[in-house]
């Protein structure tokens, strides 16, 4: 424990010395985060500096091995780093699907060459990744995907299209599910490949959401040549990689949903609705907010408990479906309550007063949480079958 206490002190001191003041404020939405990439857009010098300093220590991904650009920290050390960053209010230096999604898949299924090639660039934010999973005809039934990769000797010839590729228009590389054996049963003819978005034949088209934002694209592949060295895992075994990766995605979406407003719902509503004798003037809303806060605290504790169970090997492998389902449904409830608390002010869509309709847009965006990364219905199916062992149907 002494070593850890020393680590904690040193970490705190380093963070205090190296984290710029601007990077100690909450991130205001996805636009305000640091995404890195070949053509990075930094919102400020502080943002660039913070990324560089953290990347140098490998602390953009503290638990990855140093040889792959990570910090080489133990789990306990990484936890201390997170705690200290939280205590100081430090932002994550880098928001990256390379870290949260591709990395874990490469570590488990990638070849040594692939890890050495891709992981360090991810940790330094040099390559921005996107994910090519869904297709227009294959939503919840992901495995029915049709984008195909034909064997052309050293290369695959990729044709087809993807949808819901997050920031494909800003990404440098894509990790992608393609059908390599059209004659096999649907789960058994899929492979997991990586390729450069600058390859000839790749094009993207942003999709505008009901919130007005365009974080997703349709992505088209027209005779794209992909070196076979970019196949991750075994040919036709991409579904295993996909499943593994979806679990990571679920954890991430389940835990999301910040509007960058650190006030509790009760506080926010007190300001908009007013109070009588210290109690929220709208008593029904008060009850709904309290019920929400009860569930939200219990859910945070559940994330903590699942983590603790994982450490002692007690967590069910499908528990990420619980987190994804419950977390996203909770977040939608929170946004509904925020809209109720905000009343007509929260309905505004433009203008400075409403910060360009921030509440309304976040509310609308939250509706997608229970769709993306496997719908709530898919998560419930998984829980019913894998955890409760209910008979198939």
């Amino acid at each position, binding site marked *: 424990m002494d070593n850890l206490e020393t680590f904690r002190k040193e970490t705190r001191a380093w963070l205090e010395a190296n984290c710029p003041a601007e990077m100690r404020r909450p991130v205001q939405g996805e636009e305000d985060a640091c995404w890195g990439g070949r053509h990075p857009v930094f919102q400020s010098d502080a943002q660039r500096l913070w990324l560089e300093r953290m990347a140098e220590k490998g602390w953009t991904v503290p638990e990855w091995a140093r040889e792959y650009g990570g910090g080489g920290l133990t789990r306990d050390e990484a936890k201390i780093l997170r705690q200290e960053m939280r205590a100081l209010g430090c932002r994550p230096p880098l928001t990256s699907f390379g870290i949260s999604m591709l990395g874990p898949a490469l570590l488990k299924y990638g070849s040594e060459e692939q890890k050495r090639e891709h992981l360090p660039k991810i940790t330094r934010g040099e390559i921005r990744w996107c994910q090519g999973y869904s297709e227009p005809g*294959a939503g919840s039934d992901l495995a029915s995907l049709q984008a195909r990769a034909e064997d052309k000797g050293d290369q695959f010839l990729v044709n087809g299209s993807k949808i819901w590729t997050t920031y494909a228009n800003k990404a440098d590389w894509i990790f992608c599910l393609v059908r390599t054996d059209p004659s096999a049963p649907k789960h058994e003819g899929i492979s997991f490949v990586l390729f450069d978005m600058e390859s000839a034949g790749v094009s993207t088209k942003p999709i505008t959401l009901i919130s007005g934002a365009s974080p997703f694209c349709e992505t088209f592949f027209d005779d794209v040549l992909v070196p076979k060295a970019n196949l991750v895992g075994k040919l036709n075994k991409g579904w295993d990689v996909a499943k593994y990766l979806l679990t990571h995605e679920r954890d991430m979406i389940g835990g999301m949903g910040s509007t960058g407003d650190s006030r509790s719902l009760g506080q926010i509503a007190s300001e908009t609705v007013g109070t009588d004798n210290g109690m929220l003037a709208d008593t029904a809303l008060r009850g709904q907010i309290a019920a929400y806060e009860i569930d939200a605290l219990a859910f945070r504790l559940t994330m903590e408990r699942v983590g603790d169970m994982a450490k002692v090997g007690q967590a069910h492998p499908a528990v990420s479906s619980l987190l994804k389902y419950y977390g996203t449904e909770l977040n939608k409830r929170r946004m509904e309550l925020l809209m109720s608390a905000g009343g007509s002010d929260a309905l505004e869509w433009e203008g400075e007063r409403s910060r360009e309709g921030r509440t309304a847009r976040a509310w609308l965006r939250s509706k997608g949480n229970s769709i993306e990364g496997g719908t709530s219905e898919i998560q419930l199916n998984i829980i019913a079958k894998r955890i409760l062992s209910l008979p198939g149907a």
Partner: protein
Amino acid sequence: MALVLNDEQTMLRDNARGFLGKNAPIAHLRALRDKRDADGFSRALWKDFVEMGWAGILVPQEYGGLGLGHVEAGVVMEELGRTLTPSPFLSTAVLAATAIARAGTDKQKKNYLSQIVAGDLIATPAVDETAKHHPEKTAMTAARAGNSFKLDGAKTFVIDGHVANLLIVIARSAGKPGDTNGLTLFLVDASATGIRAERTPTVDTHNAARLTFEDVNVSADDVLGKVDAGWNVLEGVLNVGRAAVAAEMVGAGEEAFSRTVAYLRERKQFGRPIGEFQALQHRAAHLYCELEVTRSAVLKALQTLDDSFDRAGAIVSVAKARAGLSATLAVNEAVQMHGGIGMTDEFDIGLFMKRVRVGQELFGDANFHADRLARLNRY
């Protein structure tokens, strides 16, 4: 009265549905939005409404209107809900016409109602001052100054407030915020000195504004109803608005639902239509029940406004609360069941979600009306 539409009402509904489906489908709303139309509605379309008599649907025949009832106004509102059509129908033909017809002097009626019927006047009540609907907390002052009043204060969420010619302003001539006594309604020319209007673009691309009043002079002749005794008139007007918005949400909710059911039949996943999945079937069936139960309450509220206007408070609250909740359930289920495509702006279903959110808030949300019902029932 039987809880079904009579033949004339059914015909009105069919005509409205036919007309709006042809002339103001959702593409109409999109076009207004995408060109950032300055009015936010089509004056040409409004002219068509006027020609069909809709502007005067609630105006007595002696003032040139159709002299129909709230059920008929609700029939039109419901169809407007299906197509999400923006228009001054709610503000002018429903709310302002009711206020003037019920509380106006003969002179006021002759003057304003005939203009409304002719489509020459867009009129709207200006009620809310805070983000949540609390009409009794009105703080805007109406100070007597000789034979006139001076209005000072601000209003928010004023439907069509940026294009209205005539404002029906509720202001406090006596008492303090929270009192239902001491409120007076004024007919105010929207171009009067001291009024500033700021259009507030809302999530549903319908139309509202914030208004500020600074030393606005209003003649005593422009008092609508009696000084200090505006509350009952206001409550009546608000009840009419609540029932009308409830009808609109019935339309929006059912349209979203029927599009969803159609999608459930068509969309295939795992080799079969998703409508075969029992979990979705049960949710759809439950939602169907909620919408049907809401329809009963809304129809009853509209009928009660026609039959016994002053006793409509409770049923109107039931209708408005249920319409808000069941239409909200309908649009939430609609987006979820449509999956990713439901989240795209290109697809219409999200527009229903946006409009329903506004309807839910207008003139008191479900919590407001539950509270109101509890008070009426003394618990």
